[in-house]
């Protein structure tokens, strides 16, 4: 087996050193009844060529986003990632290192995490950010748990503009943590209903902008209402590129900002691995979940970085920890950091503006299709449309015409009664001819 260096001679010689007659002697503590004499019923070892052949065939059975018109967003976005990003994250020293438990020989990872935390804090307009979460949805659920700890209140208000998967992920944790969720009805302008739902028991308000329908909202008034009631405002963003064009959560009064960071540095990957961003006001730092990287000095006074404030974490505090998270999303965070360093503020702002422009071009083209109603008034790079037919059926028909037309809202939330709503997205990767083909084929399907 090509990954196993020991030879038969090595094994025999090592058993001698150990003083064991056979490998079975090393498994004496395992109950005989539980040991299998033979092999499990699975294929035997395979060479690189065979494995590559099988996996390539599976990969070829998927319609890639880059091979034709493609308009899916709704929490995962197709962007161009510079080639150097993937090259750097495949370096052995980044790819094959562990969590930086020995900082003297992990400064590469640690300094990158410090850069990541600084970039995320800047993007969200908040004071401190952690070293990443699994993804945006779990970051949202953890933010609600954190607000519950900070305020010692039991109620959380979730805007109807929150991505339904994020809502469901939060519901799963809230159910066992004893947090009562008020989940407001899904609507393009769902934020308008949030303030009325805040009361003296509210620990936090969760608002997504741009929301799942694409609506970009100034949440300043919601922040003021939440703070007046002693609640925290959690602002969720699924499209991190939007930070380059829209006011930051911090500027609008958020206490915690969480986001899906996939858009920067990471491929679609059929939903994972992604990278959750988590930022907060400084005074909340000791209630944050996840790892934090901090600056210090070494014995010679040189600047260096370590994992810090670990007394919040499970390996020290066990059942009193702020979260059970251990492994996070380090390599995806590194990809984010490198892509962000390449873009810089100048590149990010331009990239965001291009995304917005493409989406406006898409809107113009789709608005001209008979029967299509544009639902989202102000958006970044995605918006909702109402079709005269069931959106799922239309998407299926367009897929047969090699157009991946977007995400039927009912796929995310079948119970909302919005079966005719389609979520569409355009990014810098969207070509004018893709938009034209989409509009043309949609006209035919709706005719």
């Amino acid at each position: 087996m090509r990954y196993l260096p020991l030879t038969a001679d090595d094994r025999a010689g090592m058993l001698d050193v150990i003083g064991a007659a056979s490998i079975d002697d090393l498994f004496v503590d395992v109950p005989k009844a539980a040991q299998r004499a033979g092999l499990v019923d699975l294929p035997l070892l395979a060479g690189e060529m065979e494995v590559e052949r099988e996996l390539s065939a599976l990969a070829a059975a998927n319609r890639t986003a880059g091979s034709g018109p493609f308009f899916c967003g709704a929490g995962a976005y197709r962007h161009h990632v510079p080639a150097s990003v993937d090259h750097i994250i495949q370096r052995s020293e980044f790819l094959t290192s562990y969590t930086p438990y020995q900082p003297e020989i992990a400064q590469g990872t640690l300094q990158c995490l410090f850069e990541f935390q600084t970039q995320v804090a800047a993007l969200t307009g908040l004071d401190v950010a952690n070293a990443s979460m699994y993804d945006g949805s779990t970051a949202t659920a953890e933010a609600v748990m954190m607000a519950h700890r900070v305020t010692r209140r039991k109620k959380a208000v979730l805007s109807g503009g929150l991505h339904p998967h994020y809502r469901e992920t939060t519901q799963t944790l809230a159910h066992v943590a004893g947090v009562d969720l008020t989940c407001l009805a899904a609507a393009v302008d769902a934020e308008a209903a949030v303030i009325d739902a805040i009361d003296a028991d509210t620990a936090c308000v969760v608002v997504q902008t741009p929301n799942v329908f694409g609506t970009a909202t100034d949440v300043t008034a919601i922040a003021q209402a939440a703070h007046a009631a002693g609640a925290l405002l959690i602002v969720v963003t699924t499209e991190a590129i939007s930070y380059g064009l829209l006011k930051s959560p911090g500027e609008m009064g958020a206490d915690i900002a969480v986001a899906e960071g996939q858009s920067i540095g990471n491929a679609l990957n059929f939903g994972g691995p992604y990278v959750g961003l988590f930022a907060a006001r400084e005074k909340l730092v000791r209630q944050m979940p996840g790892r934090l990287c901090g600056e210090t000095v070494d014995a010679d006074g040189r600047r260096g970085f370590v994992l810090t404030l670990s007394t919040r974490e499970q390996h020290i505090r066990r059942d009193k920890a702020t979260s059970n998270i251990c492994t996070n999303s380090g390599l995806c965070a590194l990809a984010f950091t490198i892509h962000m360093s390449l873009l810089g503020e100048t590149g990010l702002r331009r990239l965001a503006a291009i995304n917005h422009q493409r989406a406006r071009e898409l809107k113009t083209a789709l608005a001209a299709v008979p029967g299509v109603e544009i639902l989202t008034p102000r958006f970044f790079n995605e918006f909702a449309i109402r079709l005269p037919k069931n959106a799922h059926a239309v998407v299926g028909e367009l897929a047969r015409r090699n157009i991946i037309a977007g995400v039927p809202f009912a796929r995310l939330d079948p119970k909302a009664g919005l079966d005719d709503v389609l979520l569409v997205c355009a990014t810098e990767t969207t070509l004018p001819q893709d938009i034209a083909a989409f509009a043309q084929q949609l006209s035919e399907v709706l005719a």
Partner: protein
Amino acid sequence: MTLNTVGRPTRMEEGVSAASEYLHPTLTGARGLLQDEPLIFELGGWEKTGVDLPDCDASQSDDLGDLVRTARIGLPGLSEPETLRHYVRLSQKNHAIDLALYPLGSCTMKHNPRLNEKMARLPGFADIHPLQPESTVQGALSLMDRLAHWLKTLTGMPAVALSPKAGAHGELCGLLAIRAAHEAKGDARKTVLVPMSAHGTNPATAAFVGYQVVEIAQTDDGRVDLADLEAKLHDDVAAVMVTNPNTCGLFERDIIEIARLTHAVGAYFYCDGANFNAIVGRVRPGDLGVDAMHINLHKTFSTPHGGGGPGAGPVVLSAALAPFAPTPWIVSTGEGGFDLIEEAKADAAQTFGRMCAFHGQMGMFVRAYAYMRSHGADGLRQVAHDAVLNANYIKASLKDLMTQPFPDGPCMHEALFDDAWLDGTGVTTLDFAKAMIDEGFHPMTMYFPLVVHGAMLIEPTETESRAELDRFITAVRALATAAKAGDAERFKAAPFHAPLRRLDETQAARKPRLRWTPQAA
């Protein structure tokens, strides 16, 4: 000396020898090929970018009105060559499995095959969206189905939830299924039993799910104390969580009895599968009476750790827990096709809900499946055998110099020593670990498991050659001999030869600086 809550020193003692005595200082601060690399915020141009994008008409954003971000964000940029240099220089300050043995016990740092990286980057896996029509992603669903089949077959369990994103997320998934199963019976139990030697994630997860954690005592030979378990098991216990092989590197000999006792009071048996590497292909957890077990794909199935993630933590479930599995999951349509079940309805009515957006860590699924497929049933069994052989070889080669906390006997995939042998030397486990860095090795896991004083937990994995093991053994023996000979200075101030010398963790925690700021610069 400043100690943290588990007795680990967090800063160096005063008055130990300084590096300047050891090194010839250079004029620039650089040390040969090792560059002193500033932060990006000290390097980058505020106007600079390394990405060429088409021009864009700014007036196109007028429709956003006062939503437009006008204040400076504060993000420097670099050209591509500068970016490469910055991050490649930083990379050279990391240890990595590709450089040398990385014996972190319980972490399973094994070789990461590059075929797996290549496969995960095929556009057919990397460039597909989780919400595309299912008809356009049949290859991806098929791969997930094949992965599920391998995981179920290797564990002897009837069901698997793929979506959990790491080991601790898998624990959460398992305990949520257990809680849902009890709730379905109208049985609101409040306690979870966890051995003292467990990973911190076990009690943290149980508490997160709303359970009170009660610790189970350990026997003098490093295993679950059956009498104590039996005394604490009653009808309020929802689950028993046991790591097997356990964190002392030992197989729980009474595992079948633990499962039987657990089931006798109506509780479920959760197994932390972090150490599945030791038994894969030889022992099926389903044959031991396990109800739920997470599998760290980034340990046993070798998806890269990436400096702290991403991981993936699929959970295999018994027939009793399978109905409560999280959404989504894959079903066969019967014509070679696959559907995703994404919501609680009909057959999925008892699901406890969703763990995360979308369907899990697809990129990790591809790598893990390529790894399993490469090894096959025979290669995976050999993985367990070689992992156990390598650990026992290290133990046999060091046990005359270092002390073991439990009576000598075969270990599984990792060898555990304590610090009794360092008594009187003035050297701590931490000092010893830091001196290992100078000798070119990443230290073993230290101060874990918590039940062993000054623990040193060594896991070589199966991907080390005998020559590399011998190199490691020679280095550790030389250090142990030096410590016993009274050469404490070598240890107290180590490391001398790392990119940085010992870091002051106390200062980092006392005055946290968690981001770069212009004022601080």
